[in-house]
């Protein structure tokens, strides 16, 4: 028979293996019994927890599946059936509105671009004379000249040879 060390006795006490005289002697040797009891309780709790974990880990796949399922259930937003339908309809409506708004913006931009493309009233183009004629029976000697005074931005149709008229034709 050999003498047990303190650690061996401590372990045996934690596991409730000490009995009788040996238990009494061990308890008497403890400097702070209350602290020792508390430590024993902690050790028992840790032991039971480890045993539970060991059991669970023996079915790791099942445990993982269960855990994931529970997390999904807990994290999923609570939504009623009509709400789900409404959400779907909202998405379609948003798409519709998005489309209409895009078309509107496109139309406005197109209009603005065309307006930008149209030069303002101060055009750089001079007036053009596309054609001119006098009645040869009325004005047989008439000649027509067309020219542009670019400095003055004026186009002139110069008709010579029309019949001269008396001053009274200047009446308003």
């Amino acid at each position: 028979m050999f003498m047990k060390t303190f650690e061996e006795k401590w372990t045996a006490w934690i596991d409730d293996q000490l009995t009788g005289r040996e238990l009494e002697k061990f308890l008497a040797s403890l400097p702070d019994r209350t602290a020792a009891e508390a430590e024993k309780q902690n050790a028992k709790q840790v032991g039971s927890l480890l045993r539970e974990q060991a059991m669970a880990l023996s079915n790791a796949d099942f445990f993982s599946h269960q855990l994931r399922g529970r997390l999904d259930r807990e994290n999923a937003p609570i939504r009623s059936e009509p709400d789900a339908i409404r959400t779907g309809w909202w998405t379609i409506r948003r798409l519709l509105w998005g489309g209409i708004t895009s078309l509107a913006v496109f139309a406005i931009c197109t209009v603005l671009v065309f307006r930008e493309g149209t030069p303002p009233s101060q055009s750089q183009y001079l007036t053009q004379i596309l054609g001119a004629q006098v009645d040869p029976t009325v004005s047989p000697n008439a000649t027509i000249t067309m020219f542009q005074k670019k400095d003055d931005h004026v186009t002139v149709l110069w008709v010579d040879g029309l019949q001269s008229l008396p001053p009274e034709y200047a009446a308003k």
Partner: protein
Amino acid sequence: MRSHLLLLVAILSVALSIGGASLPEQTVWSGLIIATNSPPTEPTPAEITQIEGTLRKLFGYSQFQLIGEARKTLKTGQEDWLAASKYFSLHVDSRGEKADAYVLNLKLFQEQKLLLETKARLSKASPLVIRGPQVGDGQLVIVLVVQ
């Protein structure tokens, strides 16, 4: 939703109306002028003042008397009008707008007699000046301006 739709329709209508009116309403002034060197009897009309210098250089006359005029606001570009004095009349037939200019058919009459017929593309920045017949010691000048 309905209010949103109405708002959108309103915005589109405004945008399209602005765009549709890309060619804003403009007025064409047509004047029958007698250019002379006689002393002035009345002030030069405002419409002529802008091109008075050009007319002086072109015709060599110093005074310009307005004997007939017409001012037409073009909405469709397809209007026609008449500028007339006692003996002369200018019939203007607008045939639409192309490249920022109005295409006009012009006919100058001396009473019932057609003196001149011309077709011009009247630009908005460029007056058209027509030299008409000699009248007394002056000259009939026709001016068309987009205002």
